[in-house]
């Protein structure tokens, strides 16, 4: 079985005025379908850059990145948008729901850009909300929902397009412990029950502890890549 994600010697170099910043320095990484993993690292380590590249929001300066066998590095911005729309679901630290727009319409958004008929958009969005336990909340606005609920709406939005990859950037960063536990349980359930590949970017060890593989990024390089057995993660819980 080939990998879902295949990164080979990825470099990302920014220019900030006269200074060259090497955000990623030769990262190679394989992620299999159905993995539940975390990317850890301090701020400035390059983990966000890596996540952006994996999420097709950014292109590497050099190196190749294949998603589902497709060489993403060569794609233009519209083709990348198409890939994000069909293959990747994003979950952000601050939820990033569109304000003053109902939960249902927020969840519809990926299907809206895919150009599906309105009826199908609504039906699938309602179904996605139901899957993460928010049925009947579709007409609420983000401001009327708690942080945990907003993040669930965001998860529904990520799920609605049936992606092969869920990319969660500090998904619990703005949540209390209880909500954090809920959200991680939802993600874990999606991975276990539906086989969706989930990557969680975090700097908190106890969030990473939910996952079964942990990568540590430091100074633009992968410095550790270790599997966690269910037992060890349970012990740490």
């Amino acid at each position: 079985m080939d990998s879902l994600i295949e990164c080979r010697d990825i470099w990302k170099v920014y220019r900030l005025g006269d200074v060259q910043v090497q955000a990623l320095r030769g990262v190679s990484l394989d992620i299999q379908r159905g993995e539940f993993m975390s990317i850890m690292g301090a701020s400035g380590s390059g983990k966000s850059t890596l996540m952006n590249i994996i999420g097709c929001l950014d292109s590497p300066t050099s190196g190749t990145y294949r998603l589902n066998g497709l060489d993403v590095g060569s794609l233009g911005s519209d083709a990348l948008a198409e890939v994000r729309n069909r293959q990747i679901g994003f979950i952000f630290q601050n939820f990033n729901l569109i304000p003053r727009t109902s939960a249902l319409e927020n969840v519809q958004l990926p299907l809206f850009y895919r150009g599906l008929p309105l009826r199908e958009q609504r039906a699938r969005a309602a179904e996605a909300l139901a899957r993460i336990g928010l049925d009947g909340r579709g007409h609420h606005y983000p401001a009327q929902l708690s942080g945990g609920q907003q993040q669930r709406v965001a998860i529904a939005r990520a799920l609605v397009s049936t992606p092969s990859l869920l990319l969660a950037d500090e998904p619990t960063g703005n949540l209390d412990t209880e909500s954090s536990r809920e959200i991680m349980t939802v993600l874990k359930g999606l991975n276990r029950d539906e086989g969706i590949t989930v990557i969680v970017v975090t700097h908190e060890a106890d969030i990473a502890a939910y996952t079964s593989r942990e990568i540590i990024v430091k100074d633009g390089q992968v410095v550790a890549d270790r599997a966690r057995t269910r037992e060890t993660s349970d012990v740490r819980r």
Partner: protein
Amino acid sequence: MGAFLFLTITTAFRILGRNRMRAGLTVLGIVIGVAAVIAMVSIGQGAKAAVRSAVATMGTNVIIILPGATTTGGVRGGQGSALNLMVADAQDLKKKIPLLVDTGWGKRDVMQVVYGNRNWNAPVNGISPGYLTIRDWSYASGVPFTQTDMDMAARVALVGQTVVDNLFEPGEEPVGATIRLKNVPFTVIGVLAPKGQSSQGSDQDDVVFIPFTTAERKVVGTQFLGSVGALFASTERTEDLPQAVEAIREVLRSRHRLQLEKADDFTIRTQIDIAKVQEGTGQTLTVMLFAIASISLLVGGIGIMNILLVSVTERTKEIGVRMAVGAKRKHILLQFLIEAMSLSLFGGLLGIVLGVFSARATTVIAGWPTIISLESIVAAFVFSLVVGLFFGLYPANKASRLNPIDALRYE
């Protein structure tokens, strides 16, 4: 794409509804511009129609021929002072030019009209048969002149409504009454239906008609028998007027024995010439109002562009999210274009309402006639959409070119 457009448009209007105050202020320029266009066109068309109908009261397809100027002892008498147009001229024109349906002639003088113990100064016109037909006069009561009246120089008169109002008691019957012109008694045989103001603003109903022969011999008098104050002719169709004018010029020049290098000793005018002069003044006003409307539409467009640029900045993060979930450049571009157009459309609709209202108000307050045309409303509507499209293009393009990562990170 259908669902996309539908949702984008409804969303645009929802955003608009949420910021009513801001939207209202933003589109003020468009509102004023569109209202100015609507009001200007309706006032312009109203004025034009008023001129047309005033000119139309002269009659249909009328040609008027006036005598030229005389110079006696170094004093130039001015146009119409010469006595070089004759009854015979008119008869010859009719004979030689088949295009002319009717010809007529007349001469006028202002004099005192007396009835009982009342008197009134009115223009008295001695007219030929045919004149009343050419000028489209109709009768409110009574009968027209007969050929016998003409031949016998009968002392009969037709009076206009203004003369009736000034000489007779309300309800009194003028037909059959005897009025005196220069002490000559005349029997009123008919009252003419009112025509109102002429295109020059004079009261056309302030008039007394008597047979030409009677005028010549008994009332107005003449230095030169058979000379007339003006000749009149009419054609069947308006298109024939220019051709008829040329034919008349030729016949009259040859009758008056004018050499090639000599100027005409008469002036020919048609309804079309008169209408043109009158409409010309309206044109100047229209051009001015059009300039004002263009400037306010321009300012309005810039207002929309400005508020859209603010909106793009405010919603940078939203744009990032949309891009992350799969919005392409065209989606973002369309979203903001549609928002710009819904703003300008909103302004356009308000402007149409305000424009129609101010046109009505102009009619009520200033008494100017206005005509609100569907074309001007449609044009204003389309124009406001175009303004939205044009001025929305820059902000929408800017939004669509945002980098998703930078947009997502924007605080």
